[in-house]
């Protein structure tokens, strides 16, 4: 079991991710914007963060950068959720310090295997 934070302004995606990962036995905290995500990441310990890139207010990239900048969260694994063909997002994401990314539209199965892979990589 892992504690996972998901931030996405789209309630459908948020609920879907939360549902799938809960099914896999993880403990989910879902928030709808970047500010809330950053607050949550600072206040509680997480094993993994899923961030949508284009959120109103603070973007996923900004959150990712801030997470990396703070020493206590610097090593927190971050997976970005990006829309297909938004040019440069993937590069920007890696530049901001993300560990992996998922492209929308995605299949729930792919999501859970990516999360599992990331978590096992961190354990090792």
């Amino acid at each position, binding site marked *: 079991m892992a504690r996972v934070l998901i931030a996405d302004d789209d309630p459908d995606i948020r609920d*879907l991710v939360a*549902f*799938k990962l809960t099914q896999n036995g993880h403990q989910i905290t879902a928030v709808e914007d970047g500010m809330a995500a950053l607050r949550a990441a600072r206040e509680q310990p997480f094993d993994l963060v899923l961030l949508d890139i284009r959120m109103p207010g603070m973007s996923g990239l900004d959150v990712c950068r801030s997470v990396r900048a703070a020493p206590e969260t610097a090593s927190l694994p971050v997976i970005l959720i990006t829309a297909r063909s938004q040019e440069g997002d993937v590069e920007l994401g890696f530049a901001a310090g993300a560990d992996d990314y998922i492209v929308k*539209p995605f*299949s*729930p199965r*792919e999501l859970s295997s990516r999360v599992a892979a990331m978590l096992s990589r961190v354990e090792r």
Partner: protein
Amino acid sequence: MIHLGFVTQALLFLPGLGLVLSLLITGTRLVRTYRQGRRRRLAAPVRAVLLELLCAPEDEQSELLDRIAPADKRTWKALEPTVAAMLGKVSGRARTALVLLYERRGSPADAVARLRSRSAARRGRAAQVLGRLRHRPATESLCRLLDDRDREVRLTAARALGHIGDPVAVPHLLESLHGKRTVPPAVVTAALTSLGPDAVPRVAAGLGDPAPLVRAVAIEVLGVTGAITRTPDIVRALWEGPETEVRIRAARALGRLGMPDGLEPLLAGLRPGQPVTLRTVAAGALGNLGAVAATGPLKEVLGDADPHVAGTAARALLRLGPAGEAALREAAVGRSDPRAAAQARAALAEAAVGSTRRVPVEVVL
């Protein structure tokens, strides 16, 4: 002149109207709030099942479908927006489950019937649904809609055909480029491109079309889908085509295809005397092509009178590897042509900071 009586009546009537309008404003708001609340209440329990369906393994899907599909009309209406939105957000098995759900509800059949509706908005919505569901049997009806009276309906039909992916649609899509009721080339190109490699032979047939726009779009699509076997045809289009529009697309396609046969015609397109847009695109395409043999000619146009041609050439040289960069360095210190030197220095400076300013090959709308 105006009668006093009329004014007095107006004076009584207008505040009344004002009151009615105020009530209308609050009324619409109340009704909307109420409806939203009801919809949420109705959808909430089914929505949970929907999420379960999306995450379920294959063997459990049909049981979950049995639970959602029989929902009454009101519940379905409340849930459908979520289902439609999800369709664009998930892929793989989860998507298939949603399509099955729509099929159980009979939506594709309804939508096909609505394609003949008298209301343009309804036809458009139906086409959109069919595209989103990738409902292959609707291909033929959607092809007919490419000639619809309403422009937005035609556009939606073209996009839907792209999503569905049946290559049968190719000639219809190409035909929709000209005539009285047209679909814009960018939309047709996008649709044809998403049909994938199966469509290439049919798209290539468009190379011989008398309409220049059809040839232009066919060339563009072949370039994007990487149909390298068609390079000779595209080369011929660049050499021979009298229409600049066709030649520009041919140049761009040759850059994308990256075959050595593209070099000669692209160099010809770069020469002074050719239309400026063609020269710019040719310069950019030579960068994409990456042939070292282009170094000399590209270096020559660094001092071109047109700054767009020169600027693109400079950035194209950067993509030719060490030879190109050496050429730029040489030009940057050259005294004979200050314009070329400035262009070269600008491109080198950009490269030095690691910025990737794209080479603009998409100069045409």
